[in-house]
């Protein structure tokens, strides 16, 4: 049986579908009215006598204005409604579960915070908001799950984010939606939405690579980052404890928020945003660490929350936002 409508399996799916129904209703109304008018006029005013020249009908300004203003009003609803969904899609909730995605020609590489890694498959528990932080090793890809009605490009050189809460247990298509080369149509996979219990079992059953933060810590030591970035702030470079999510004062006078993108940039292009009061001493790690490795480092730095009374100044609110 050929399906004619996709399954709804995320929090966004019903919202997008309701908007679709509104648009369909408006479109069908207009189509019917226009088609009916054309058919009616074409028959009623068909040429009956040769050589007839009908009288010109004068333009009705009121009519013209009406058929500009009314459709415009209807479209503004489309805009507002669509924008509100989009706004929601752009703001993952704080309690979302973090999963990291790296796209490359032609596969999806996925890392869970607990350390599980998957290729072209993603297992998630039902009912929990999932936040994906994504990047690409080569060209632009796009992470598309039709059943969730979401899609976001995966762009080399930067992080992109998407989120959703799966609402229905099942197995759903994952497609790459941005043309990425020869085997673009082979860059597909499956999303497995599981009952929380099953998901826990899956987590426990897989081979353990150690958690993502642990891997990041190991990498941090292998690359000798700690020689300069000392935990107590005594090194030549700023401490990374409690850094994530905090505003950072730069040498240029600007302030940026230390999000995933900032940390990635600072590892790969350390000169781009130098912290105020520090020298641009750090070498670039471009080519020395993979995108997956960078994501592990990011997760490790995220996990560096200050211990109470350790001396680094962080407000309790910031600590709270760090707890997963």
């Amino acid at each position, binding site marked *: 049986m050929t399906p004619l409508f996709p399954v709804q399996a995320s929090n966004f799916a019903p919202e997008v579908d309701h908007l679709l129904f509104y648009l369909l209703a408006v479109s069908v109304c207009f189509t019917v009215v226009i088609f009916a008018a054309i058919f009616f006029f074409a028959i009623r005013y068909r040429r009956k006598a040769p050589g007839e020249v009908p009288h010109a009908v004068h333009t009705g300004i009121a009519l013209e204005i009406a058929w500009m203003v009314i459709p415009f009003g209807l479209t503004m609803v489309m805009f507002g409604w669509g924008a509100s969904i989009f706004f929601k899609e752009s703001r993952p909730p704080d309690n979302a579960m973090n999963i990291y995605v790296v796209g490359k020609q032609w596969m999806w590489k996925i890392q869970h915070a607990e350390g599980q890694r998957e290729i072209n498959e993603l297992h998630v528990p039902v009912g929990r908001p999932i936040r994906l932080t994504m990047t690409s090793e080569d060209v632009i890809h796009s992470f598309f799950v039709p059943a969730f009605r979401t899609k*976001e490009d995966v762009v080399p050189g930067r992080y*992109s984010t998407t989120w959703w809460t799966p609402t229905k247990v099942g197995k759903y298509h994952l497609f790459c939606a941005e043309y990425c080369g020869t085997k673009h149509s082979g860059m597909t996979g499956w999303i497995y939405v599981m009952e929380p219990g099953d998901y826990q079992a899956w987590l426990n059953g897989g081979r353990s690579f150690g958690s993502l933060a642990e891997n990041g810590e190991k990498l941090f030591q292998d690359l000798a980052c700690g020689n300069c970035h000392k935990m107590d702030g005594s090194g030549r470079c700023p401490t990374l404890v409690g850094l994530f999510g905090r505003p950072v004062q730069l040498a240029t006078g600007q302030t940026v928020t230390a999000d995933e993108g900032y940390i990635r940039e600072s590892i790969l292009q350390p000169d781009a945003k130098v912290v105020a009061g520090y020298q641009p001493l750090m070498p670039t790690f471009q080519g020395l660490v993979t995108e997956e490795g960078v994501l592990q480092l990011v997760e490790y730095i995220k996990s560096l929350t200050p211990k109470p009374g350790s001396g680094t100044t962080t407000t309790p609110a910031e600590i709270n936002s760090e707890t997963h």
Partner: protein
Amino acid sequence: MPEHVDSVKTYAAVWAILLALTGITTAVAYVDLGAFSVVVALLIAVVKMLLVALFFMHVRHSTRLTKLVVTGGLLWLMILLAFTLADVWTRGLIGTPGR
């Protein structure tokens, strides 16, 4: 369009101002004006452009259509710049990487 012949004196004056402005823009680049240095540089460049267009290219004697074409072209350049910058400058502002 009646032919308008400007005097050599006018042209020479415009030319002298243009050369002076080139000197000024170079000199002022060595002065620390902070964020304003780019504003000043562009302002001087715009003045120079206007001088060349109005006098050397005779826009001030031209038809309204020519003036419309010139302003229209510059407006379109602004559209290209403004809307793209609207994206670049607001990236990540919502607090989510890549949004």
